[in-house]
C-alpha cells in the first residue's frame, strides 16, 4: 500500500520535501515506517525524538497503518 507522509521542521530539511509518498508492505505498523525512513535518511536517527502522528494523534509504535490515514513525522516540538 502507499501512504502519504507530511513532514515538518527539521524532518522536512532532512528529507528535502514537505511530503513524501511511500510504499509499504501490508500490514504495516508505525515502527515499520520509522525503520524504513531512518534507514533511508540516517540523519533522522540523530533526533532526540521522532514521533509519528496518525490522524492528528500521536501513534504507538505498533499501531497499524491504513491506506487513507493522515500520517506525519513529528520531530521534537518547540512551540510556545
Amino acid at each position: 500500500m502507499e501512504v502519504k507522509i507530511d513532514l515538518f521542521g527539521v524532518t522536512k530539511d532532512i528529507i528535502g520535501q514537505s511530503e513524501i509518498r511511500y510504499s509499504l508492505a501490508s500490514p504495516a505498523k508505525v515502527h515499520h515506517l520509522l525503520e524504513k525512513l531512518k534507514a533511508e535518511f540516517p540523519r533522522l536517527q540523530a533526533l532526540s525524538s521522532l514521533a509519528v502522528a496518525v490522524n492528528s494523534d500521536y501513534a504507538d509504535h505498533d499501531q497499524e497503518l491504513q491506506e487513507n490515514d493522515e500520517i506525519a513525522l513529528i520531530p521534537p516540538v518547540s512551540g510556545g
Partner: protein
Amino acid sequence: MIAITDQPISVADVIQAVQSDRAGAVDVFIGTVRNNSLQKNVVRLEYEAYDKMAVKKMEEIALEVKAKWPVQKIAMVHRKGVLGIGEIAVVVAVSTPHRKEAFEACQYTIDTLKQVVPIWKKEFYDNGETWVANHA
C-alpha cells in the same frame, strides 16, 4: 478561542474570549520573541505548525485543564510564520473564580502546549539558523 494564526495575535481579543461574570481572576501568559537564546543573537524566527493536529491537541489540553481546575473559560492562540524580536508567539488566557487556580491552570496549559502541540521554531542568528527543541 483556540487557534493557529499567521496574523499578529491580539492579546485583547484573547482576554476578551475568557471574560466571565463568574470569574474573579484571569491569568494571561504571553510568549514573545527574545533577542537572545543560549548566548546567540536572534534576529528573527519562524514557526511552522501542523495546523490540524495542533488545534486538536490544544482542544485536548483545554478539556484536560477544565477537568482539573474550576476554569470558566480558556483560550490559546499560537502564531506561525516569520516573527521579529518582541513579537508575540503565543497567548494563553484562563479565567477562574479565584486567582490560585488561574495561575496553576495557565501555567499547566503553556507547559503542556510546549510539550505536545506540533509546532516548530526555527531561530535565525547573525550567522546561521537552527530548529529548536523544547525540553520535555
